[in-house]
């Protein structure tokens, strides 16, 4: 199912996301919205690191699941941060409303791409 078309579609969506974020910063001459890209690039990292740190085969050991939970908690934190940060900057009139909306949409597109990419291509490696 994960073929060439998926890769093309995903890269297309990723490009649109980056376009929106870069436009939101370049159109308004205010480069604070680039923080959204950094946020969404960092967002999948905690799950990845904590997934490696914990041993998922241990059902009796409860300490491993604590690490995984912490990674998930951080992921939820970063995803909402990507929406909250432009809203915060807009509320303090550091960036314009249009820039905030564009960067939120662009950031969600980027994060969605990263997520669906790992969803499509992770299973082949594991089994």
């Amino acid at each position, binding site marked *: 199912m994960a073929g060439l078309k998926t890769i093309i579609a995903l890269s297309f969506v990723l490009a649109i996301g980056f376009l929106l974020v870069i436009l939101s910063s370049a159109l308004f001459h205010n480069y604070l919205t680039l923080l959204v890209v950094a946020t969404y690039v960092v967002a999948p990292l905690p799950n990845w690191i904590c997934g490696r740190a914990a041993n998922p085969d241990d*059902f*009796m050991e*409860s300490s491993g*699941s604590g690490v995984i*939970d912490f990674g*998930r*908690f*951080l*992921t*939820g*934190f*970063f*995803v*909402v*941060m990507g929406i*909250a*940060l432009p*809203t*915060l*900057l807009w*509320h*303090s*009139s*550091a960036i314009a409303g249009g820039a905030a909306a564009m960067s939120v949409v662009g950031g969600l597109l980027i994060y969605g791409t990263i997520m669906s990419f790992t969803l499509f291509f992770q299973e082949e490696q594991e089994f």
Partner: protein
Amino acid sequence: MSSHRLFRFPKPAWLNSANTRTAGVYAAGALFSLGFYMLIDCAVWSKSAMNPSDPPVHITFVDWIPGICSALGMLVINSIDKSRLSADSFSYSGNGVAWKARLVLFLGFALLAGGLAGSVTVLVLKYVVREYSWPTIWMGVGNVVANGLVMTSSAVLWVAQNMEDEYTYNLAL
């Protein structure tokens, strides 16, 4: 297990699945993030051009104390291994592990409740009593909402982690 039930309505089955647990942990992170950034929003807004107060009203360290207390309380509560709370009824625990766990947990809940109460105190004493109008009073209201969100996040995380016990219990048997 079902014969030891206390209430008439059984716990719905979806509450015990691993997926609900995962969603709960994600939701807790999201709620904490909302609360945290609401706090940051108050501080940033206070120094921005949007703050219209004429004798300037700014966020000081007093406004941060409730948030710090809430975050510390959340950290303490969720650091405790929940299975230790009933540890005294089993044989493997000596030295009163459950007693210690309950003491630390009490400290955590006190910090959390103190954070929420402290934010209301700051709102009343710093903003309501001096009769500031709406855009200025946001710095106090946002503080209360942020602490409430941190508390909600802590509750969600607590429930999600208690689900885990039942889940692993079902797996172990």
